[in-house]
């Protein structure tokens, strides 16, 4: 029993660590609809503002805007995780850079809002 419980603890530690690597510390926009299907090996592009500087990272590794295209080129899909409070004119250069790299679509990451009675819409 101890062995099994220890294995579970290690599992949750690893999953928690991986999840926090992909989810940088930002406030996601809220959405009442969306697709929960995940795509293996997809790149997570995190966009947030620190002071007046745009901070970008891909799967937790900081990347300058000019190198964003090469950082996501091998990924089968790009997930865009931008802070909800970011003005759109700070997000559009990221989209422009992705477009220049040949990315034709992104999956905008949003936080699920819960419908009444606890279900998600």
């Amino acid at each position, binding site marked *: *029993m*101890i062995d099994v*419980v*220890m294995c*579970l*603890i290690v599992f*949750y*530690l690893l*999953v*928690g660590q991986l*999840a*926090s690597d992909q*989810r940088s510390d930002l406030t*996601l*926009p*809220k*959405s*009442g*609809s*969306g*697709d*929960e*299907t995940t795509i293996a090996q997809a790149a997570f592009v995190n966009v947030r503002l620190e002071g007046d500087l745009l901070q970008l990272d891909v799967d937790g590794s900081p990347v300058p805007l000019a190198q964003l295209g090469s950082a996501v080129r091998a990924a089968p899909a790009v*997930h865009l995780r*931008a*802070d*909800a*409070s*970011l*003005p*759109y*004119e700070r*997000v*559009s250069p990221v*989209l*422009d850079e*992705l*477009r220049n790299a040949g*990315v*034709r*679509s*992104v*999956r*905008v*990451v*949003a*936080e*699920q809002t819960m419908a009444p009675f606890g279900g*998600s*819409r």
Partner: protein
Amino acid sequence: MRRSRDPRHIYGPNLAPMVDVVLVILIFFMASIVFVGPEWFLPAAIPAEAKQNSDEADDPYALPDPTLSLRITTVDARPAVAGLGAGVVAIAEFESHATEQLRGVDPEAINIRLSAEAGVAWQHVVTVQDVLTRLGVRNIALDAS
């Protein structure tokens, strides 16, 4: 057969407190994973830049672009949406307005291009995208220019 409580028959450390602690740790990790929060994804295209000097642009017989351009703007410091029907509609009323405007239209046949003026928060863009997705619109693009 009843086990003896004779200290001479107890071997090794007492594991009972360790099991308690380990179970508490396990419950903590399981709960924290749940609290990380559910995420989901809204697909959006990134359209290519419009061709300014192509022959197509000069063709007087070219069919009109089927893409509907919605622009998120600010009216009296409140976010609003322009481009769907007449006038500008506050984001809070956009869902009912869009439902009315898209009545009788196949939502999967519509292409919508979203743009926003300077200062509009990303949340408002996602809110409009969310409303359109719930109305069945599948072809939504985010303006990157």
